[in-house]
């Protein structure tokens, strides 16, 4: 793991752009023939997702924050689902050697986690006031030294968010690629077919769960900041 302030890598950026385009394309497909009567296909799926997140966020976040947070969470979820699943798509003849999940590059989950960290600080200032925010950082649970505890807690949060997502997705991609790189011969083909298929299904589920966990944690952290009684 190396850190670089000025470095830039094209693959995560390109894969990220593709994921974004897929989400946007699906969204546009959903509203192409928007119907107020009986929604079908993509619109139905999108409305279901929207309502699910509306319920989910509505249970946690205060009403003032809920509508915006719902759309943010839904966008994040859709982007993460597409990003996570991308690396599992086998192309005919190529296998999964070419397509990568943008979330399998540490920079992308880390960037999103840092953004969530900043968003949480902003929510804290907005909903607790600058005074309440500073008290929360420096005076709780104990005066002055509370800062150490809070800093640890606040810094562990984005790191754990980033590495949880990155690790799960990278592992899914790597193991799937290992199964397609199995040795030649009957045994290798069987391993590719059975273990590969099994792992593919498992990884798909993991992809969805990780996207959901990342999103729900974002919503939860935001809600904790926005709820004044916490």
């Amino acid at each position, binding site marked *: 793991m190396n850190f670089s302030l000025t470095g830039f890598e094209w693959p995560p*950026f390109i894969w990220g752009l593709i994921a*974004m385009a897929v989400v946007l394309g699906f969204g*546009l497909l959903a509203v192409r023939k928007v*119907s107020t009567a009986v929604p079908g296909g993509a619109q139905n799926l999108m409305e279901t997702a929207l309502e699910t997140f509306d319920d989910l966020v509505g249970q946690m976040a205060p009403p003032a924050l809920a509508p915006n947070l719902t759309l943010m969470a839904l966008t994040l979820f859709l982007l993460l689902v597409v990003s996570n699943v991308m690396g599992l798509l086998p192309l005919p003849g190529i296998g999964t050697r070419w397509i990568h999940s943008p979330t399998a590059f540490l920079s992308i989950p880390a960037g999103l986690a840092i953004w969530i960290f900043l968003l949480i600080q902003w929510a804290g200032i907005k909903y607790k006031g600058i005074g309440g925010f500073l008290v929360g950082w420096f005076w709780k649970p104990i005066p002055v030294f509370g800062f150490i505890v809070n800093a640890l807690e606040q810094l562990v949060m984005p790191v754990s968010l980033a590495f949880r997502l990155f690790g799960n997705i990278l592992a899914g991609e790597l193991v799937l690629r290992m199964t397609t790189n199995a040795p030649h011969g009957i045994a290798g083909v069987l391993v590719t077919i059975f273990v590969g298929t099994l792992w593919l299904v498992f990884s798909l589920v993991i992809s969805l769960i990780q996207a959901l966990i990342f999103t729900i944690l974002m919503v939860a952290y935001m809600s904790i900041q926005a709820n004044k009684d916490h």
Partner: protein
Amino acid sequence: MSTTSLTALNMIAAIVQWFILLFLLRIFVYKPLIASMQKRKENIAKQIHDAETLRGQAQQLHDEQEALMRSARDDSKNLIAAARREAEDQAKKIIEDAQREASYRQKAALDEIIHERDAALTEIRSQVADLVMMATGKLLERNLSDADQHHYVQELLRDAGNLQ
């Protein structure tokens, strides 16, 4: 290229990408989608409200009809009863009239019969007297004076009355 390398520009790019995606989705997807869902909700609420209103109106109409029907049934029952009573009264009156008429006619007829009988009797008596007088005159071949005749007649009449 390493998947584990942390590059600041890629992180910023990820955040910017996410913001652009959120922006585009909000404008082109969420807005029309939410509007359509809202409209659908309103439509459904309106339809439910309309259905409730219609149901209320139907119930009211039904109640009115039922009340109307009940009153009509009562009216017809009353009308039939009144008509029957009237008919009975009329029949009684007709019968009474007929009876009265009949008894009146019977009485008139009886009176006339009595009167006729009396007249006939008087007539018969005078004729009998004349006949007797004529017969007697012829028998005796003797003319009596008017005074005598009258005397005889009276006598005969008295006798005839006594004979009666």
